[in-house]
């Protein structure tokens, strides 16, 4: 299991997501967004779908459909 802390922007709400793999596609699925609606950043760099994070990692999730 890998617990990933996700700060969702622009709402600024932080959610802890429990995943089997820590992989980006699973994090997005667990957050409940379509993949196309969101961009995940780790240490300021965008994450690709098949990248995986370690337990305890903190990421920013930008919701593309909000604002503009």
């Amino acid at each position: 299991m890998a617990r990933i802390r996700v700060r969702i922007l622009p709402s600024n709400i932080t959610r802890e997501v429990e995943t089997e793999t820590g992989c980006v596609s699973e994090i997005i699925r667990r957050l409940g967004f379509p993949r196309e609606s969101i961009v995940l950043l780790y240490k300021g760099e965008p994450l690709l779908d098949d990248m995986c994070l370690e337990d305890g990692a903190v990421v920013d999730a930008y919701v593309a459909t909000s604002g503009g």
Partner: protein
Amino acid sequence: MTPMLRRAVARAKCSKCERPAVAEIRYARLRLCREHFNEFMEKKVERVLRRVGVLQKGRIVVAAVSGGKDSSTMLAILSKLSKKYGFRVIGVHIVLGIREYSEKSLEKIQQLCRELRVECLVIDLERVIGFTVPELARRAKRPTCSVCGLVKRYILNAVGVELGADYVALGHNTDDIIAYSIKSFINHDITQLAKFGPSTETIKGVAIGRLRPLFEVYERESLLYALVNKLPIVIDECPFRPRSPMEDKIKEFMNSLEDDHPGIKLAFVRRLEKRLGFYKSLAESQKYGRCKYCGLLSAGDVCSFCRVTEKAAGKPLGPLVRSEIRRLVASIRERSKAP
């Protein structure tokens, strides 16, 4: 750590070079580094601009910039292409008077224009007409978002007319265009649907055509471009934005479809563009004239802006706005003449 948990994998390489990828474009089966992603995005915009005939020396494009991701991405790409092709881009930002949101937006826009070295015109609504958008809406007894849209359309068009611009560029991305089109289908409003192409026509002296450089740019790509290039953007949402507008639901649905069928959104807007002639042939003919107060485009004797401001302030404020814009545009002309 369970056996299922893999360590953070190394970043995949760009499909075009050895650099690490920052973007994955599923419908094109590409993984791109920052440089190639930028090139990919700029080519998309370039193709749209070529189709509508903007890539020519001497053309003038007024770019509406709000401080959000889409208009900032649009301005950054237009600025690059303008240097390559010799057309002129002038950013226009309207300070709407929506508390801290407007203050933050202005700050980001000024930074963006400085960084891109693009000429930007700032129009503070309260300073020009004495009211902010929320106040105008309250006095006119109209929804804030409706008045906001009206004010922005009016001012952008007026700036375009004064500058003799060829187009007013808007930051509408693929997802926006799909959402607006589906909404038009829901309302059976073919006249409205016929307007959602990459550009609309100019009516000389009264209405400047709209240009949508991000017609083939997905919302996610627009955000990614702003993030990977570290453009100064406002992340916050406007406090007046409805909690769950219909457009958001449509976007969510289309994004779920895109997840299963990569490229379906692109196919939608490309087919829409091909069918525009057909939709235009079905559209109801609209007769336009000039507003008797301000002289700009109007469906009746008085344009919507003059009507709303007359209700709110006791007199139509179109002529006042136009004279202020004339003054600002003259100062731009003076600056561009200076050595």
